[in-house]
């Protein structure tokens, strides 16, 4: 059992939003930084006032009830925190939605969640016609990436987007602009000043706050039910791991990962709003040069990212030649942080990079390397406060010390279940234990190491090969930019190891990779085949998708 859970300081997420806004009033809360350096900002007071107005718009103008689902589908931009906090202040439930979804994926998520209102970025609003009628969405609010920018930069960026890049489609469904919605909400508030407090009156930590969609272990996207208590407990748990490097009101955090993803939502938005940080929002971190202006123009002290993002930064000359000087720490999650990337990061920036582990179903943080305590390379760290972890074998029995087993979690951050899916919930949550599908080992100090996804383990002649281990070895080669390892059917060994590599420069071929692997790995772990490619399939936050690589192979075989 880990340290006892710290006191949860807030009664619900709206309370968090209000308290921080009152404490850090005129300080800058959010800045959106475009790739060309154009920017717009909101202060803590601004965010408070605007999210109040949005809450009133939902409850008064639209007449939504407490608990109604509101979908939010934007990239990182100033509209995001205003709408998200507005939803919480209205006592409604936030449904984070990936803006890159296809219409059919959108339709599935909107139908499944029963969302009644949708806030969508104008860039992708043309995907709505044809699917809206099949959902319960009655109101579409259209937001802009340049929302709350000054008039001139907004006009310039929109002109460039419209005329040069041609990415501003006409919105063909009935809709209201976010600015208009906020004006209507503000007017409603003026007419009914006491209404605001009533929206969240009597709301406790057990109330549902968000439906966070995830493919989970079975593929079909389903909504993890996260309560105010889940998210706020996890905020305290995550904060405790980094508190030594956080000064209230003085931090500047770079948000390159999308806020609709649970990692950035918890870590960048909630944690750093609670400590009065300035949050620099980058609408798209790809290509990674988009981050250059953010690093140039703002004194970034914290960065969150995934392995691919850190790796990409370390391959940019502007970053390695002039690493951010105010940087205090970086946190990595989402996918295994490769040892070589972690070492290079610490060497280049001179700061700590701490790896953690989490999943949507746990709001998300489960384990972390304490920033100022003992950090072990290749480890996801210790269980965060108030969290129990068990490693079990296929029969559900605890494994012997030092042996790999499926990681089970119990704690205040674990979700209530999947929205309207009792069968899936029963599979994932058993006796209060969340079954993660990840295989881990633990050392004598209580530090966990993820061996791999249970279903990614490759069985070569009866031996378990963990792709992460092989990837980590291959990533040490200078000629390798990115690597992914999967198992492929093999007539002799059952399964065989195959490596996919995105090379950089010349000199990366099958023979060189295999020779390199033989130096560090037992024979059965050395890739039997190596395929070079120019890019990797990735998730929205940049995790390499082994699943997609396997699917490609199946297609090929047909």
């Amino acid at each position, binding site marked *: 059992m880990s340290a006892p859970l710290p006191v949860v300081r807030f009664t619900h997420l709206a309370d968090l939003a209000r308290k921080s806004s009152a404490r850090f009033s005129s300080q800058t809360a959010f800045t959106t930084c475009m790739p060309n*350096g*154009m*920017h717009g900002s909101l202060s803590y007071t601004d965010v408070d006032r605007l999210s109040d107005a949005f809450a009133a718009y939902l409850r008064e103008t639209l007449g939504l009830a407490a608990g109604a689902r509101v979908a939010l589908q934007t990239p990182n931009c100033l509209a995001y925190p205003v709408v998200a906090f507005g939803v919480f202040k209205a006592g409604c439930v936030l449904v984070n939605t990936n803006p890159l979804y296809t219409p059919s994926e959108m339709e599935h998520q909107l139908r499944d969640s029963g969302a009644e209102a949708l806030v969508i970025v104008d860039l992708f609003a043309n995907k709505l016609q044809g699917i809206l009628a099949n959902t319960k969405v009655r109101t579409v609010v259209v937001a802009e990436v340049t929302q709350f920018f000054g008039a001139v930069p907004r006009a310039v960026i929109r002109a460039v987007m419209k005329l040069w890049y041609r990415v501003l489609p006409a919105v063909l469904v009935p809709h209201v602009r976010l600015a208009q919605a906020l004006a209507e909400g503000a007017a409603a508030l003026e007419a009914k000043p006491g209404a605001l407090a009533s929206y969240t009156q009597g709301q406790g930590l057990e109330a549902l706050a968000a439906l966070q969609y995830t493919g989970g272990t079975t593929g079909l996207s389903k909504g993890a039910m996260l309560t105010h208590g889940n998210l706020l407990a996890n905020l305290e748990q995550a904060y405790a791991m980094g508190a030594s490097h956080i000064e209230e009101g003085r931090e500047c955090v770079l948000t390159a990962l999308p806020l609709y993803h649970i990692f950035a939502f918890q870590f960048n938005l909630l944690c750093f709003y609670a400590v009065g940080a300035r949050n620099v929002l980058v609408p798209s971190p790809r290509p990674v040069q988009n981050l250059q202006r953010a690093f140039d123009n703002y004194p970034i002290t914290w960065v969150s990212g995934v392995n691919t993002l850190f790796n990409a930064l370390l391959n940019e*000359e502007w970053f390695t030649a*002039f690493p951010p000087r105010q940087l205090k720490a970086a946190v990595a999650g989402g996918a295994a942080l490769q040892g070589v990337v972690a070492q290079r990061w610490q060497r280049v920036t001179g700061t700590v990079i701490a790896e953690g582990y989490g999943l949507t179903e746990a709001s998300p943080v489960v384990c972390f390397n304490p920033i100022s305590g003992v950090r072990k390379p290749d480890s996801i760290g210790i269980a965060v406060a108030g969290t129990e972890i068990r490693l079990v074998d296929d029969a559900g029995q605890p494994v012997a010390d030092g042996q790999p087993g499926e990681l089970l979690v119990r704690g205040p951050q674990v979700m209530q279940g999947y929205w309207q899916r009792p069968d899936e919930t029963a599979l994932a949550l058993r006796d209060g234990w969340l079954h993660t599908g990840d295989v881990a080992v633990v050392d004598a100090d209580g530090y966990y190491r993820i061996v791999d996804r249970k279903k990614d383990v490759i069985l070569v002649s009866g031996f378990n090969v963990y792709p992460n281990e092989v990837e980590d070895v291959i990533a040490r080669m200078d000629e390798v930019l990115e690597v992914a390892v999967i198992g492929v059917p093999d007539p002799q060994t059952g399964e065989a190891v195959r490596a996919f590599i995105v090379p950089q420069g010349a000199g990366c071929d099958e023979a060189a990779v295999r020779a390199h692997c033989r130096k560090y790995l037992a024979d059965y772990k050395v890739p039997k085949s190596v*395929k*070079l*490619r120019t890019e990797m*399939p990735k998730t929205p936050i940049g995790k390499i998708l082994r699943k997609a690589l396997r699917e*490609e192979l199946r297609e090929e075989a047909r």
Partner: protein
Amino acid sequence: MLTELETKLLGVMMVLIMLGMGASLTFKDFRIAFRKPQGILVGLLCQYGVMPFLGYLLAVLLGLSPPLAIGLILMGCMPGGTTSNIFTYFSKGVLALSIMMTICSTLVAVAAVPVLLEIYSGLRALPSEYKVPAGNVAQILVVLVVPTVIGMVLRKWNPNVGATVELLGGALGVVVILFLILTWVPRNHRLLATTPADVYTAAIGIGLVGMLLGYWLARLLRQDPRRSRTIALETGIQNGPLGVLIVVLTFSGEMQQQVLLIPVLYSLFIVLSSSAVTIWFRGITTREDLARDQAKVQAAPA
């Protein structure tokens, strides 16, 4: 040939373009560029080695008269034009390299252009009245470096202003050329009709041959094809408006008319020839991308 107003407008626009170029830069960019300077050095070699010599060579081969010869040599000695960045963008070239080359060649111009002009005018044994005074050229270039630095400061001071100026400067680069074409061609169609073929050959040839030589030299110096195409465009596309400005500020009357002919024709035709080359390069890059796509398995949806 150019009215007083047009000359002044040209000057103002040049200053704005340089302001925009400055706003696209930080001091860090320079330091980073010079950590791996091969691309830029190859570019500078093309810009100030190949082009001035090509201007001189064409002037000799075509037996151009002194006013035409100095116009051609002047164009050969000019730094890269900012429009090359736009063409590079459309041809799917290496934009960062193009921008850095333009900037470096413009900065180096302060020293290189007066010296090169002196050398090649001397070689061609031009009468002294056709010489462009070195101090004059240096002065104009120094004046242009000032807005560049102001642009850099603007960007540091307020990124919103910086980015706006940057976009404005880029757009003005095209506007200046269009302005020259639209105001100048209708008024001078008779002149165009009577201009002999060898003048056209010189004005068009220097750009096209420059691109060809730039590409070869870049490939010879082991730049990859995509970078070589970028260097080719950068080499062939000179700062035409700057050439026009220097002529206007140096010569007057009938003499100005004669010297101006090739810089103006060059500026006119380089837009057309670069557009054609850009479309061709874009096709090549697209084919290369497709070939790479087919070499790998189909990418999965994000």
